[in-house]
């Protein structure tokens, strides 16, 4: 593969690709191969399509693409067909033969694979008709269904690396001015303006500067960065290239969680391709810029998402944060000026370069322009990867895009911002989702995890869950964080076990303040948010645990009892499956649980086909 040496060569290469595509006039079958769809067997669907297309002699008419995440994980494996993006859901390998024969070859739409809009009852043929997609603005993710992440040609066809060309045309100063004008805010959660960071880093006197991409997406329940890396890895590389050009750096790092093996694989391929094509290496596109990127795998420590800890980890040290009296843009990796942004922030950069800051400012809100990716998960109907304009309300995201609460239950809370964020109740659903609004309400946007909870979720248990997480992930450097979170976890556990008394809640509140004020990095400072926000909005639930010794949601095992109702048909299934042999009863007669022996494992409830077991 020949190197592309100039901007003009890139454009003629792209023209040739587009012409070839037009001449071949192949129909595209795009099979979603994001982490979610892969897990339910997307690779087998791809294989089946390849085999079937070959068997029917359609190889020169049809192109099968294994794409990155197309978003609607709940309906995987997702397959989109043709330029009109006919949208098929839950495709299994067995269905492939018929799809190729009837749809791909014959142009017939198969109703069985279409999405039913639950509100109108109408079958949706194309992506644009589906409420989940209709209510989004997919600037970063929209192309995912068109390109194979392992093909640099696909990325070039949609205008890839032209943002870098534009940046070189503009010159480094103008790039930084444009970034500052666009007021892009860091998508990792901090919300600090990227343009200002770039400017400071560039202005520091130094012989060496580093560019780092933070892909240590540690928030549980968040997979936006993972999906961007898996679906469009070149957009991140291009964003880093622009940063390197503007700041004047020759060395970059991408620090990825080791829990994302697929993202690492695709990124590795993308980097190799970028090197082959000349987008990494020396004198890139004749710009005079020399730049290359290395991948560093994380070691499974949440705290390494913090910039100073991450840099320590790249240096081969234990990932402990340090006090930031001197910012990392001045003295970061190996003591040199270092610009660190998150995956999604870099992915925004090429768009800003190509379309300009004014275009970017027209999206989103005044203080938070652009769009934001969210992973919409939990007890919501349409679990998936969502991209919405900043300023969209929580209600729009959860109900219009997300399709409301699963299993006909009632909305209770939405958790944003991971372990640093908070839980917001129904009364806050009309809040605009942007950096500042959520912060004012004691939550935060964070990197974009959005976990929806229904009335069967206990808020005390949720707070306990996050404290347990943070307690393990605290690096231990600050006493308030290390001991404070441990103690907080103990106190909240006491509440969940019904052992709390009137002194417990005031003690929790006081301790929250100590941890918040006494910790060095955001892990401790914001780690109390899940407790504080649940106490603020769901205090009565804590009180029910303490005063009435009840868990209203039926989650905290110490405070619940399982019971068999009259709906029991006496089928013996629960009796057989009970690990403690504490269910008695004869065939066709109602069974009884011995509550003394019951360990509340919930197996009987899972096993019962008649919904005859309840918790009180």
């Amino acid at each position, binding site marked *: 593969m020949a190197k592309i040496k100039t901007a003009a060569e890139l454009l003629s290469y792209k023209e040739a690709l587009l012409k070839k595509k037009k001449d071949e006039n192949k129909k595209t079958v795009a099979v979603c191969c994001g982490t979610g769809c892969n897990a339910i067997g997307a690779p087998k669907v791809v294989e089946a399509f390849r085999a079937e297309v070959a068997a029917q002699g359609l190889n020169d008419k049809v192109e099968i693409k294994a794409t990155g995440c197309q978003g609607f994980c709940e309906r*995987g494996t997702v397959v989109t067909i043709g330029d009109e993006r006919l949208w098929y859901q839950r495709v299994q390998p067995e269905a492939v033969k018929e799809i190729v024969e009837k749809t791909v070859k014959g142009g017939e739409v198969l109703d069985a694979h279409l999405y039913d809009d639950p509100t109108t009852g109408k079958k949706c043929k194309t992506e644009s008709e589906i409420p989940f997609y209709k209510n989004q603005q997919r600037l970063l993710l929209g192309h995912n269904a068109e390109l194979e992440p392992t093909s640099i040609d696909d990325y070039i066809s949609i205008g890839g690396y032209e943002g870098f060309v534009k940046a070189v045309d503009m010159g480094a100063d103008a790039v930084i001015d444009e970034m500052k004008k666009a007021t892009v805010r860091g998508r990792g959660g901090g919300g600090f303006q990227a343009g200002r960071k770039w400017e400071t880093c560039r202005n520091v006197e130094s012989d060496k500067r580093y560019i780092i991409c933070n892909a240590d997406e540690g928030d549980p329940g968040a*997979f936006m960065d993972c999906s961007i890396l898996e679906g469009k890895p070149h957009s991140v590389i291009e964003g880093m290239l622009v940063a390197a050009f503007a700041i004047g750096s020759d060395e970059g790092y991408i620090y990825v969680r080791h829990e994302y093996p697929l993202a690492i694989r695709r990124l590795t391929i993308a980097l190799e391709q970028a090197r082959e094509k000349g987008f990494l290496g020396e004198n890139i596109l004749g710009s005079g810029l020399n730049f290359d990127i290395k991948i560093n795998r994380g070691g499974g420590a949440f705290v390494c998402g913090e910039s100073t800890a991450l840099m320590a980890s790249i240096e081969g040290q234990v990932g402990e944060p340090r006090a930031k009296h001197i910012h990392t843009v001045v003295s970061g990796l190996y003591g040199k000026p270092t610009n660190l942004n998150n995956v999604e922030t870099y992915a925004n950069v090429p768009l800003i370069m190509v379309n300009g800051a004014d275009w970017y400012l027209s999206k989103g809100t005044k203080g938070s322009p652009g769009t934001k990716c969210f992973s919409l998960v939990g*007890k919501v109907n349409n679990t998936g990867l969502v991209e919405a304009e900043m300023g969209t309300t929580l209600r729009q995201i959860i109900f219009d895009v997300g399709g409301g609460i699963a299993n006909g239950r009632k909305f209770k809370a939405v958790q944003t911002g991971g372990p640093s964020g908070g839980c917001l109740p129904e009364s806050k659903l009309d809040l605009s989702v942007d950096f500042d609004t959520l912060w004012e309400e004691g939550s935060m946007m964070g990197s974009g995890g959005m976990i929806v909870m229904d009335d069967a979720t206990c808020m005390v248990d949720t707070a306990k869950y996050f404290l347990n997480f943070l307690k393990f992930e605290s690096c231990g450097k600050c006493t308030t964080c290390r001991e404070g979170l441990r103690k907080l976890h103990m106190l909240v556990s006491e509440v969940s076990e019904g052992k709390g008394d009137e002194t417990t809640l005031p003690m929790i509140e006081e301790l929250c303040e100590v941890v918040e004020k006494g910790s060095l990095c955001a892990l401790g400072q914001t780690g109390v948010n899940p407790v504080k926000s649940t106490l603020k909005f769901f205090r009565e639930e804590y009180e029910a645990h303490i005063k009435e010794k009840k868990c209203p949601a039926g989650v905290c095992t110490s405070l619940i009892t399982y019971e068999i109702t009259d709906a029991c048909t006496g089928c013996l299934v629960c009796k057989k499956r009970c690990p403690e042999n504490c269910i008695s009863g004869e065939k066709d007669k109602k069974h009884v649980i011995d509550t003394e022996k019951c360990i509340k494992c919930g197996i009987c409830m899972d096993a019962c086909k008649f919904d005859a077991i309840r918790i009180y």
Partner: protein
Amino acid sequence: METAKVDVIIEKYNGEASSLLAIMQDVQDEANYLPREAVEYISKKLDVPVARIYSMATFYESFHLEPRGKNICTVCMGTACHVRGAERLVEQLERDLDVSSGGTTKDGLFSIEEVNCVGACALGPLLIVNGEYHGNQTTNSVSKLIKKMKKNEGGE
């Protein structure tokens, strides 16, 4: 683990001590855990104290200092999986395999591990067996899977 294999890994990173984390990760990928001899060997080759390697190995969650089971059952403990009952999957595995989470069965066939989130939230609760994802699990489906695996291993 043979020292020759460790040599190849160290060579890959030009013997630089700054690549310690990556070297340790590659050794673990090879041996499934961090053998004591390998740690001592790396220490000597890179001129880094053993204590520093151990401090890294105990700080970063992904390292294991004991041999792990032939089959590794990992439960995703992300928030989305948690609200859908991941805890109960762990309890079921503990009962079926008679070992606590984080441990390995006496016959060395199974390990139970937990991971913070793998980003397949739509499929929660999620169980990963030897790298293969099993979504929307219940205590019942977990039990069936374990039974099948035990049978394949020629056990009960």
